[in-house]
């Protein structure tokens, strides 16, 4: 049988993910040290990919397992199994508005009937405002949503925040929290069944490691 393929998100989650894998006894020594994207290690083949792609790889069975933030899963709506909360990479989806402009934008909403919301996460934003019954126009931006209210592109933003420092530096305040996010161990549903003997013990060990932290 082929190696179990395990996709890891490059970027901020990678050091914690590697620490977790090391802690449960996997050899991750070759990962992230050079430019290789596919790194075999014993019975496992690690694959490095952008966070947004991990869910796609796992959903389509190109990878059997993955570690990726819940935020990415919420935005992608990929059909994967979430097996364990690994508890690192904590961040929050929030609605934020210019610190002094909350009242003004609510007044605008009364008069104009709609708010403009800039975000990198249109699916999460749309779902949230639909649930709240607030009429919004989503403006999709590729980065730095916190810029949007300052230049008049949008009234509010929906963004992912870890510490809130970026919001504060741009004079934005949290209006409400949409959801919290941490890293998740995910599996392709078919692979989880067919390779349960390999995946289940690994998932248990990672869950136990996360619970003990």
């Amino acid at each position: 049988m082929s190696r179990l393929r395990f996709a890891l998100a490059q970027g901020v989650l990678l050091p914690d993910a590697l620490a977790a894998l090391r802690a449960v006894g996997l050899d991750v020594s070759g990962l992230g040290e050079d430019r290789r994207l596919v790194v075999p290690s014993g019975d496992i083949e690690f694959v490095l990919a952008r966070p947004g792609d991990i869910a796609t790889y796992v959903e389509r069975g190109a990878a059997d397992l993955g570690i990726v933030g819940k935020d990415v899963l919420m935005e992608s709506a990929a059909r994967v199994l979430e097996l364990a909360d690994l508890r690192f990479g904590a961040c929050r989806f929030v609605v934020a508005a210019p610190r002094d402009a909350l009242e003004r934008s609510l007044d605008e909403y009364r008069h104009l009937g709609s708010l403009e919301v800039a975000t990198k996460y249109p699916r999460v934003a749309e779902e949230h405002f639909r649930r709240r019954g607030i009429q919004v126009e989503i403006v999709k931006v590729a980065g730095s949503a916190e810029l949007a209210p300052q230049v008049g592109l949008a009234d509010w933003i929906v963004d992912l925040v870890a510490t809130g420092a970026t919001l504060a530096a741009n004079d934005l305040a949290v209006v409400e929290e949409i959801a919290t996010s941490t890293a998740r161990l995910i599996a392709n549903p078919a692979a989880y069944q067919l390779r349960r003997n390999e995946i289940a013990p690994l998932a248990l060990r990672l869950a136990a490691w996360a619970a003990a932290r």
Partner: protein
Amino acid sequence: MPILAPPRGFRDILPTEARELRAIEHALDETFTSYGYVPIEPPMVERVIADSGADRQRLMQFLDRDGSLVALRPDITTAVARLVAQRYRDATGALRLSYFAPVFREEPAMLGAEREYDQAGVELVGPSGPLADAEVLALLAESLARCGLRDATIEVGHVGVVRRAFADLNDDDSAAVIDALRAGDHVTAFRRAADAGMRDGALARARNALAARGRTIEAVDIDGVDELREVIHLARDLFAGEPLWGVPNLSLVPELPYYTGVVFEALHPKSGFPIAAGGRYDLLLGAFGTPRRATGFAISVPRLHLALFQSGWRPARERALVSLAPAGTRETAQVAAALRARGVVVAIGAVAERAGLEIVDAAVVAGDRVRMADGRVVTADELAREVS
């Protein structure tokens, strides 16, 4: 130039692929027929019903001229439920229906997803109990085997057992937990159960139940597990097949909400997605005003085809195609007729699309004789023997 490509998510199926799909359709049709299933052909377009369980976002829907909302059918099961409620309202006994037909789903752009693809399946309406559940399970296993698929396993779960594992919770919490499981989110499911006050012991029992697959199911002590095991044993009596094709597996909680009892998915090592899925859906017909027991399955034909292809399967060899180079028109017509009368497959002239068929070149000579590529001149009878 007009745009020649079909709309997004639709495509042409060219002869090589179409021949393979026909071979699959034929094998499935024979197997369904052998279990007493008869074909049914619901319409391509159905009314959109508010609570039919279909995800409205994924319907290809449009307004009819009278203002009613209609959609290209997203599956056949819902259409059959509607049809049974309308046409077989008073029928008693078992209704065994089969189909092989395209379904339509709106898919997000850029994922390479098709909006139209073939589904093949059966619905067994009326009977309930282990033998009925086992029948559709065995029929799925036998259908895949008769198509030539090896190494498929069918994972068999039980939605009722999973619900009972969370029976300590009130209705709202229990529904939220099951919703999370349907979405594949075990993290949220168990967190919600714990937050709702489910005791540690019960939580651990539910965790163990959901993790049980294969033999470990014997340790699970929840009502319905025995029934699940009995169904698998019966199914294996109905169709022996490869050893251990039926695997009890309680982690299986399908995305669609209308399932009530035994559920199953066919998996294959070459496919990242289930090839087929089905189960007992006793609540769906009730939504159309005719509560009836029902179970069935649907095979995704493209996924089955892909798994077959990647395992090295090719359709059984058909008779070679004789490409007949014409001489005079009358003589050519007579030779073609003489060959076809002897069961030879003949195309006059050069063949632009061989669709994977073996081509035998032959040129009309005179008086019902042809010259082969190697220069031999043979009669229609001799050629018929050579290519049969």
